[in-house]
């Protein structure tokens, strides 16, 4: 199984965190919060598309609502593969950082 990219990882965690309310707008807000910068509205969709095609997420089409101009909402959920990939990403992260002291990055005084 291939490794997730950083952005894919952030998105998958956001979807997991948002639970039942994971869709375009909330996901982007979560990404903004995590990364600390403002992403364009459309930024998340290419990644969502890739995750969907890779089988990491599934989509649920909900009823249309008036505040969406009669358009339906696409909700995202993690699949089993998505969860496994996240678990592996976490392990990789831990192994990557294992034994690295934050002190090592301090500038010498």
């Amino acid at each position, binding site marked *: 199984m291939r490794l997730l990219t950083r952005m894919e990882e952030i998105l998958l965690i956001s979807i997991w965190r948002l639970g039942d309310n994971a*869709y*375009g*707008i909330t996901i982007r807000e979560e990404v903004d919060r995590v990364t600390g910068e403002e992403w*364009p*509205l*459309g930024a998340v*969709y290419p990644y*969502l*598309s890739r995750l*969907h095609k890779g089988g990491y997420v599934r*989509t649920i089409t909900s009823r*249309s609502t*008036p*505040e*969406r*101009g*009669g*358009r*339906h*909402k*696409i909700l995202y959920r993690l699949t089993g593969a998505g969860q496994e990939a996240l678990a592996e990403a976490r392990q990789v992260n831990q192994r990557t950082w294992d034994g690295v002291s934050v002190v090592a990055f301090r500038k010498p005084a």
Partner: protein
Amino acid sequence: MKNAAGPPRLALWLLDRFSGWEDDYGAAGDFEEYYRALAAERGTRHARRACWKQVSAALPGYLKNVIIWSDAMMKHYFRVAFRNLWKHKGYSFVNIAGLAVGMACALFILLWVQDELSYDRFHANAGTLYRLEQERDAPQGRFRHFSMPYSLGPLLKTDIPEIQEATRTSVPLNLLVRSGEKAFFENKILAVDPQIFQMFTFPLLKGDPATALNQPGSLVITEDMGKKYFGGADPIGRTFVFNNAHAFTVTGVLKNIPPNSTLSFDMLVPFDFLKTLGQYNDSLLNNNIPTFVRLRARSDIAAVGAKITRLVGDRTLAGIRANPALMSQYQSNPELRRRFESRNFLLLPLVDIRLFGPDTAIKNIYLCSILALFVLLIACINFMNLTTARSANRAKEIGLRKVVGAQRKSIAGQFYGESILTALLAGTTSLILVILLFPGFNALSGKSMTLHSLLSGKFLFGILAVTLFTGIVAGSYPALFLSSFRPVKVLQGRLSGVGKNAIFRKSMVVFQFSLSVLLLICIGSVSRQVNYLKEKDLGYDKEQLIYLPMRDQAPSSYAVLKEQLLRSPRILGVTAIRQPPTSITGSDDMADWDGKDPAQRFTVRFTSVDFDYPDTMGIQMVAGRSFSRTMASDIQRTFMVNEEVPKIMGLDAASAIGKRFSFRGYQGTIIGVMRNFHYQSARYPIEPLGIVLDPSQFRFAVVRLKAGAITESLADVKETWRRILPQYPIEYRFFDEDFDRMYKGYERMGSLFKVFAVMAVIIACLGLFGLASFTAEQRTKEIGVRKVLGASSRGIVLLLSGEFAKWVLAANVIAWPAAYFLVRKWLQTFAYSPGIAWGLFILAGAGALILAFLTVSFQAVRASRINPADTLKYE
């Protein structure tokens, strides 16, 4: 309501375009929700701004994407195109050269057409300027002309409200013009009304257009005339003397008249000068001079014409009633009444004179445009032919492209791109050709265009349009045909539709050779007709015959001149005539004779000559005698006629002698019938002609020189003239040269045809050459096998050429009937023609066949010489 609250539709649409996803990830709904939330929270304006900010943020990425990908594809296409051109240098040369020649041809014609269409459009008021015309019943049908009564012009402005200005322009005056030491005959002098400057755009470089022609004796000349008479000095205030009698002072200098003006002149004098010359009368019944009017905007032309008809009709009738003598003549003469009552005035737009007037340039424009289109079409066909023929070589490339995902659209685009690229190369080449050949074109077409007009926006646009048109037309077939290949079949090595393709290619070759043969027959017929006209027996001996215009007071010295000239042994005869020998134009619809049926109407030509006319000209008498000095009554009282006159009288030549005859105010008897002779272009039939002897009408002296001693006898004429008429420079012209000059137009047409035909043949041969070499290449294996099995080189050459010969023969079968109808139609415009020459048809066909054979056999011989081992080794 719902939409009003939502985000701008355009923004949504753009976002949709930019994203380019096929699946729905809810983006549109999310965007709408985001927008509404923002609008509810911070107002619609803020939301809109935010919305557009999002769109513009998406734009750069999108554009980058588009450019990167299409740029890569473009580069790829260009590289493939250039590789293809380079790999097949021979084909590419044929293709580009053929197209370039075809396009250069089309460009030249475009230039010519542009020049023709530009006639008279330089006037600021061109749209509201008209020339008056009138038509009436005549024995031959409706007769239309643009001569107007002298006195009509000034009436128009006062009596017809739609007419803003009117100016009369005399027919060109031919005067002896002297200023200081310099004296020339000038024949482009017009007497005009001063309004000419307000109506037409003929700008004055010096002088005031409002007053320049107001005083009698004022004169406006062109820049060139100023240079001719005064060199660099300022002409204003200088004086001229016309015909040694009338003094003029220069009050204005005109910018030179553009060559594309139908109204052309070197000098302008006030209109009343015509009265001084005695060329004016008040009668509204006579028609003498052109008149131009400027209408107010949005006037109804037909209504103005009707008003003029009524105005002239009323005034003329009033004039007739006031004059009892005229009244009785009017009542007794039905021809006169008919002429008066059928008179109808019309307005012809100035800008239409050139196109639809007597020169009818529009016909030539159509003809040449069609010709240009043909040549261009042939070049395009070559291109299509070659590209399609090469499709087999490129089928694998296309199959592969399709396999890796190319859509039909992009393959068609590639081929269009390639053909447009080739067309652009050809276009550039053709532009270079046009610039190089420009002087030759000017000489050929008799125009004085400058390269300057090449650089006008219109023309450059024309080049681009022709190039793109050629590219698209030429690329269409391969683009649409090649992109339809099914990849599996192509890669398997089976080519779909090649059979159909071959028929298409053959029909193309047939088509272009038909056109070439057609053009060859046309040039042959034109030059045959022109030669026929030039060598036709005119009915008199036109060699060693000269005529000398006698201007102004010169005719009064004619008798002395004649007597003195005849003293020279080298001068064989002298007579006088009223009109130049190539254009006897006077005519009368009211000729009358003994026993004429009043219901019948005939037009009889009229002219006036001196004693010795038939002898000097070499015209035979069919019956009766010539004018005789011993018969005093011959002057103004007797007629000589041509053979046509007894015919319309219903008599034979001998019995017409002695019959009473009257026309043009002359009354008397017929004393002689002359053999028919041509008195105008032999294009027109010989019509009934009556001749009187009237010394007051002599305008030209005719002198027959001695054959074999032209120079000496001409010197005698000059010496005598100088002695008797020292105040007039001598002018003389040869009859035969005058006659030849009348066919200049046809000769020019003939040489234009020649150029086109040569081009068409070259292009067709280039096309055939390319195709033949392709066929030879395609059949290398077949040829190899044939040779292995014992075929001779000769047999193979015949095999390859024979096929093309069949097509060219088929082309002849198409071209002949077409040429027959065209040539017959053209020859029908001539009264005399040698008829259709079948030999020409066979000659053109054989010529095309030989050319085709030479073209093909070059390739065929090469193909037949290849060692079969080379072509078969990889099987």
